[in-house]
């Protein structure tokens, strides 16, 4: 595909590609809302790979722009290791103030179920009153999705049950019913989902309809494959971009990060970690 082969990694999993893609979306001057759990890994990679002093805001009311000196990765956004490495600690209301003042330029969030307008559900599968499957609830994602300037959703599985036409419950606002419905509801016009990153591809949102469309393919993935695994009738960019494969360095850092995460009791599916011990 025209990419210089010696620089790139040949074998990697879709999960790893998702993390690498997410990491690439982070710019040095971003004010990042960092969240549990896959974004935590992507941000960790960005700090190791390129911006050790990336500015991060956590929902507990903690601002950080130094690489955590501890050898261990924080096990969560509340790990006490974070405290003596922060430039500010307060409470959740302080974190909300940064969001509401419109200062967050980038937020990464992981979710399990997303619809074509970028709304997410982390609450319930099935009717709310008679759930088939109860999920944990939204945490702070509702406001992070509502108020961040650039919002990137990470999905660790690209399937029809994960990318759906319509949600049973909207936990986190995307473009709601599309078009101008988000702005009409009262969210600032310069906010809203920017991309959805999955193991297969990156989707972006139509500027008018606000429907997600296929914008770029991860290496060795076809348009058909993406469409087949998306519940709604996915629209496709006129020219679908081809995403650069992960570099050897990116994968090195990605796998170090994944190993660190496993050491801190993160549960990673076996199929994501097949190359970790190589």
């Amino acid at each position, binding site marked *: 595909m025209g990419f210089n082969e010696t620089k790139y990694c040949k074998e990697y999993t879709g999960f790893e590609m998702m993390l690498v893609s997410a990491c690439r979306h982070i710019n040095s001057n971003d004010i990042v809302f960092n969240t549990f*759990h896959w974004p935590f890994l992507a941000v960790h990679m960005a700090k190791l790979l390129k911006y050790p002093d990336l500015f991060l805001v956590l929902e507990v009311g903690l601002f950080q722009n130094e690489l955590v000196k501890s050898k261990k990765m924080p096990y969560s956004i*509340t*790990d*006490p290791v974070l405290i003596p490495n922060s430039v500010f600690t307060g409470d959740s209301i302080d974190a909300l103030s940064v969001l509401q003042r419109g200062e967050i330029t980038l937020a990464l969030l992981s979710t399990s179920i997303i619809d074509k307008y970028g709304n997410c559900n982390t609450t319930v599968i099935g009717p709310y009153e008679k759930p088939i499957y109860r999920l944990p609830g939204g*945490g702070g994602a*509702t406001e992070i999705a509502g108020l961040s300037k650039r919002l990137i959703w990470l999905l660790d599985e690209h399937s029809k049950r994960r990318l759906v036409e319509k949600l049973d419950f909207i936990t986190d606002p995307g473009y*709601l019913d599309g078009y101008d419905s988000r702005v009409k509801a009262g969210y600032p016009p310069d906010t809203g989902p920017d991309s959805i990153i999955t193991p297969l591809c990156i989707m972006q949102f139509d500027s008018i309809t606000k429907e997600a469309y296929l914008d770029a393919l991860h290496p060795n993935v076809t348009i058909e494959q993406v469409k087949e695994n998306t519940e709604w009738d996915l629209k496709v960019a006129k020219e679908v971009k081809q995403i650069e494969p992960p570099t050897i360095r990116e994968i090195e850092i990605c796998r170090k990060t994944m190993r660190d995460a496993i050491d*801190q*009791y993160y549960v990673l599916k076996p199929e994501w970690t097949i190359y970790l011990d190589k």
Partner: protein
Amino acid sequence: MTMKEAIKKFVHNNNLVFLGGFGNGITFSAAQEIIRQNKRNLSICKCAGGILFDQLIGAGVTNQIITSHCWNGIGPQPTWNFKRAIEEGIPQKIIYNEQSLFMINMSFFAGYMGLPFMPIRSIVGTSIYDHPKDVGVKAATVKCPFTGEEICVVPALNPDVGVIQVQRADSEGNAQMWGLIGDTKYGINSCKKIIVAAEVIVDKKVIMESPERTIISAHKVNAVVHEPWGGHPSYMQGFYYTDLEYRFNYTKETKTLEDWEIWLEKWVTGVDNRQEYLKVLGQEKIKKLKAKSIMQGAVDYGF
């Protein structure tokens, strides 16, 4: 006062109860004493905290949780009692009064401020705004008289009783916490009755050495409990680290109803208080979790 006495005196059936701690100083000891005393129909509010909620739900103590997240943060992994209650009604149907993290924080802040509501720039357009349907009006919008915009407002929370686990307090109840505060300061100050559990009880002089660390002052506090390690398996900055292994294994060890009952007996109903709990935990684990000291943060208060 002991935790047993404090819970007996101030936590009553049908109460709305605030339990403090977000990562730092989660009120496990208090929650487990509530279980031992077999309280019923409590509504529990707390910004997040899966395995604490899960125990209260599994023991049948609570029929409503007011929170934004209920899962085992380590993994992350499901909390099974929570799922059993909601999906199957075991041991009873419970209401999950869905909140977002920031929404419940603003509700506590409204309670803290003695105000009936607080505005917030979110929630509108989501299902959280009006689910569940049977818990009254959860949120509304008002028109800003200055800008003309419609803005979401959430109601104050003023629990009947609250418990916090802090690093230190004096015997009168001036309580200090550092590291993450989460919803603890605003939550506990919004309560009508207040129990402070502390790792250490100190002289008031120590409190006055850095008065900005005080999160609640004695004039509101009804009971002071000296409760070392009361936050285990969460952490307390400067005292002990999270018991990651214990928390990780919790999900595995409580997956079936039978396993949960064994777990409950071992850690909660089979012990009489936190001291006995710590015996079950064992000296070796306690030694391992004990924090390595990082004394810092002194500044010049001179004049």
